[in-house]
């Protein structure tokens, strides 16, 4: 079986500094994978390379066996902050891909219902809470039917309880749409709760790959998660990341 997404970065430099050095991995269709690591380990840069936002690097990217460079419609991106355009309504933000008039697309209502924001079509971003805004961002990310959804520390700016609800929402919509998910996070609990596989990353690259063999829905208190967290922390400690 060929992988849905193939990533191989030979080298990525910012001036004299090498940020990424020979990193590679593959995502199978329908998988949820996390890149877990401390700030500055290059995990966000790696995500931006896959999204096509960083084009200067040595390496190869392939989606469904097709090599690509730069932006790719099959790849969606959700930022750390919601990044909604404040002058557009919620519906216009969700349907941003279609341009003006997109707000009337029937899929807007469906997606808003899926993320639990029915009826907020005409609200402005300033009227939303942080959690609601990130839900709109998820709806916007799904609007283009991406095969792979990339998320860059998407829940790090909300409180712990909102975060847990948003994590469950992400699992739900990913399952609903059959979306493959690659998530960057610095929270071991989040990575292990969400993912099928966790790639533990430090300055030296991907140190350890942890499989999470638990069926969903998962119990956040499951002892296997704690054991895996210990393994992740051990790997990070060994890499002098903590």
């Amino acid at each position, binding site marked *: 079986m060929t992988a849905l997404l193939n990533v191989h970065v030979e080298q990525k430099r910012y001036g004299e500094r090498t940020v990424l050095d020979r990193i590679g991995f593959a995502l199978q269709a329908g998988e949820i994978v996390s890149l877990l690591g401390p700030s500055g380990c290059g995990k966000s840069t790696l995500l931006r390379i896959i*999204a096509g*936002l960083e084009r200067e690097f040595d390496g190869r990217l392939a989606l469904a066996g097709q090599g690509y460079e730069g932006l790719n419609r099959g790849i969606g991106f959700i*930022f750390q902050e919601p*990044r909604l*355009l*404040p002058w557009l309504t919620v519906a216009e933000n969700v349907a941003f891909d279609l341009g003006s008039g997109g707000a009337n697309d029937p899929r807007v209502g469906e997606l808003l219902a899926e993320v639990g924001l029915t009826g907020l079509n005409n609200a*402005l*971003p*300033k009227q939303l809470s942080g959690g609601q805004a990130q839900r709109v961002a998820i709806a916007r990310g799904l609007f283009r039917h991406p095969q792979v959804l990339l998320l860059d520390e998407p829940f790090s700016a909300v409180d712990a309880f909102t975060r847990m609800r948003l994590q469950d929402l992400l699992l739900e919509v990913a399952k609903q749409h059959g979306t493959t998910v690659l998530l960057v996070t610095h929270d071991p609990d989040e990575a292990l709760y969400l993912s099928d596989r966790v790639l533990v990353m430090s300055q030296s690259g991907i140190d350890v790959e942890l499989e999470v063999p638990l069926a969903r829905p998962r119990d956040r208190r499951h002892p296997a998660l704690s054991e895996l967290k210990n393994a992740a922390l051990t790997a990070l400690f060994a890499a002098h990341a903590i």
Partner: protein
Amino acid sequence: MSKTSLTLPALASTSRRQPLRLALSPAFKRALLGLALPLGLLAALELASQLGWYRSNLLPPPSELLGTLAELWRQGLLKHLVASTLRVAVGFAIGTAAGMVLGGLVGLSRRAEALLDPSVQAIRAIPSLAWVPLLLLWLGIDEAPKIVLIALGAFFPVYLGLVAGIRDVDRRWVELGTIYGLHGWPLVRRILLPASLPALFTGLRGGLGLAWMFMVAAELIAATKGLGYLLTDGRETSRPDIVLTAIVLLALLGKLSDGILKALERRQLAWRDSFKA
């Protein structure tokens, strides 16, 4: 049970009607507060003049100004008002259009900035009234020099506002546009222009204020009609009441036109999540 359900709606409807009348009052109260100072000053002036505390030949009391206003109206005040307003409207429109075109170019293109901005900044450094003699020499004393001077006044705030607005657009919004494959004109239309609208409106309101100012300057120098002409006329005929009436009319027109822009701004920028005291 049925009794309470009958009385409750009645209570609710009366208690709903009352706050409705009160709900209008905060805005009304604010307007009253704003009027308190000028009205109080006028009343004091009127009183002082009636009591003979000062000689009113240089500072006529409000009641006399009302008489002057009526007299001017009979002599064709409307003609002066229309002349001045039209000059401002045409000059402001030209200045705004030029400011938006050049400001847009300079804001969007580093090459256009390198080419145009130094020259624009150099021209901006010239006090605009210094152009008056040249404009009179080149364009005569007709409408043209006045319109050009007003346009010049309106141009710079609009230009600077739009350039600053585009330059201050959040890089992250541009990145979002990039992800959606926007570049060139679609990126400008969907991200850069809406994002720079607040700064543009600040520029427009500043430009309108300067347009009124330059209109007066132009009319003071050479005009046969307009509020600036009334000012000159009042001075030459030793009629401070005419001068003061013209000043009050200028204030009202300026405030009215700014109010229109402000209302437009509030409607266009309703999305802004800004501080409201």
